[in-house]
């Protein structure tokens, strides 16, 4: 087993630990645990970054050096990294353990899925000609940061609808966090689509070819654009906004996973 897999294995366990620390907090209600949770989250993100860096270095040792952003396994690992990164970026607002609990649970899911599923190729693979471009980095990073920000928005929407007393932050706060995460996600998704379009122009010969991935990213973009207009132009609040952020995230997941598994197209690096 290669070292990056070991490190990423420990990272997966840390996400599990984070989840249990939240459970502990909810049963003991000691504020100290929250401080500890953030410390562990920082350590986890640090180690996670280290794991990705190791994988990058190991790829150079195999003479096929490239950033670990090239296949499905690497995208799952990077998605989990982005979820933690966005949490730390939004730390000031995320002082509600229920949100960080669900976010680390989602990160845990991606890490676990990546390492457990037998159908996922975990080894470092060489870059095929279509991916040999500097656009790869900026395109993948912007897309996954946006996907991660939408995780937070989804959690807020979900919590708003559940209305679980005592644990859920106040409704206005949830809406504010929801909106703030879309402020990160929407520009990032736009940048991801645009960098993808420029790259497609140089690699495939057309900046837009209605490839299923492209089309679904556009659908996702439209859903969040509707969210922003509903909120600012129509003044929507509450349940309807929560529903929109859930629909938006379903569309994100379909763009990321559904397109790869159900539809075929130019973006078929992942399966």
């Amino acid at each position, binding site marked *: 087993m290669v070292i990056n897999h070991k490190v990423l294995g420990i990272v997966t366990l840390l996400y599990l630990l984070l989840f249990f620390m939240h459970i502990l907090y909810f049963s003991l209600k000691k504020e100290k645990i929250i401080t500890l949770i953030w410390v562990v989250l920082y350590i986890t993100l640090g180690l996670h970054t280290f794991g990705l860096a190791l994988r990058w270095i190991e790829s150079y040792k195999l003479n096929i050096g490239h950033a670990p952003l090239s296949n499905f396994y690497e995208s799952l690992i990077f998605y989990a990294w982005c979820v933690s990164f966005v949490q730390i970026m939004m730390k000031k607002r995320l002082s509600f353990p229920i949100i960080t609990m669900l976010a680390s649970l989602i990160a845990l899911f991606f890490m676990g899925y990546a390492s457990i599923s037998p159908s996922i190729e975990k080894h470092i693979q060489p870059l095929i*000609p279509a991916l040999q471009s500097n656009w790869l980095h900026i395109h993948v990073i912007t897309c996954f940061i946006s996907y991660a920000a939408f995780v937070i928005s989804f959690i807020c929407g979900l919590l708003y609808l559940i209305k679980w007393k005592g644990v859920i932050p106040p409704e206005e706060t949830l809406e504010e966090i929801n909106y703030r995460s879309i402020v990160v996600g929407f520009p990032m998704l736009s940048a991801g689509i645009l960098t993808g379009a420029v790259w497609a122009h140089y690699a495939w*010969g057309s900046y837009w070819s209605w490839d299923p991935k492209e089309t679904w990213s556009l659908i996702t973009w*439209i859903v969040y654009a509707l969210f922003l207009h509903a909120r600012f132009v129509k003044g929507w609040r509450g349940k309807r906004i929560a529903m929109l952020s859930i629909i938006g995230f379903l569309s994100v997941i379909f763009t990321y996973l559904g397109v790869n598994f159900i539809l075929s197209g130019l973006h078929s690096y992942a399966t």
Partner: protein
Amino acid sequence: MLKFLTSIRLTIFLLSFISIGSLFGTFIKQKASVEEYLSIYSENTYRIIRLLGLDDTYHSPWFFALIILFAVNLTICTLGRFTRFIRSERDMKLPDEHTLTNMEMHFQIQGKDSVEAIKKLKKRYHSIHEEEEGIVLEKGALSRYGALTIHASIIVILLGSFIGLIFGYKGFMVLKKGEVRDQITIRGDNTKERPLGFALRCKDFKASFYPGGEPKDYVSTVEVIENGNIVLEKNIRVNDPLNYKGIHVYQASYESTPSFLFNIGGENVILRERDTYKKNDLILMVARFEGMIHDFGPGVLIAYLEKGEPKTLWFLKDVERLREKNIQGTHIRLEDIRDELYTGLEVSKDPGVWIVWIGFAFILVGLYMNFFIYHRKVYIRKASNGIIVAGFASKNREAFNEEFERLKRTLW
């Protein structure tokens, strides 16, 4: 009618329909053959798909109409927003005492001179309106142009894509090593050729692979020939197209086809599948190629006429006894089977692409303006025994609250 065209309700309706239409387009196979559709759907379903144009959703008239309507709606909304904006800037007034004290963020300082306070605030904010009784200042005004910039950029992008659609084209060219062509094939309902205005010659093509067998690099060395002169030579790779006179040439695919070297009556002849060879009475045709015939290796099936009767015969390269034969008195021997590489080049011209890039750049600028700068106004007004200071931000109130508190401390 005009009111409907400019309404946000129409925008929401159009965007929803564009999304749903696109969604169908991703689930239903696009531009496939009738046989393919009938193998997936029943005849009635296929009839509905054809009727709705869902076999080529993104180029169907109704999808096009939705996009055009969206462009019109967006243009009118953007213009309307812009004029309202200019008007509100012109009618700037300092609110009265009552309005200011009713604002969420405000404070009063007793016995304070307004001149000094205004001087202090002018260092941090831009004055936009001054009158006898006080002043209106602002910061981050750019943010109010954010949405406008984004919307205008989308119109620019749509414009660029229409220009590409009308004046651009896309086709492909398959070149064998050494071959020269000056026409491309345009795909479509009726495939047609189109002259390029110059010729391309494939000087070389190489495909390389990683030790594990994954493709590593496809490179076509291509010469651009114009009026008989070589004007440019370039290695075209997958992420590195050739650009000549606004025409892009991309490395899209490659094919390998076997060619067969025959010695026919002492003469070396290269034949490919379906080729015919004629000399005097002898007529040969390469009917078929098989990579492996039982355990005997590759073989070529030759069809020929013997006394008016069609006959066939296998030539096996690796079996000495079966690689030569006399047909109508001529000695024929299969000397070699070679793989000939063809490079598949995608050729496209899109004069609208620069407009699209400009739209992209401005959309990013607009997003930054809209989401990462926020607009706030600060008012100072002389009151009976001092000054009233009030502040207002339409977005990001939390951040402005902190800023306003700091402002309060500096003024006290």
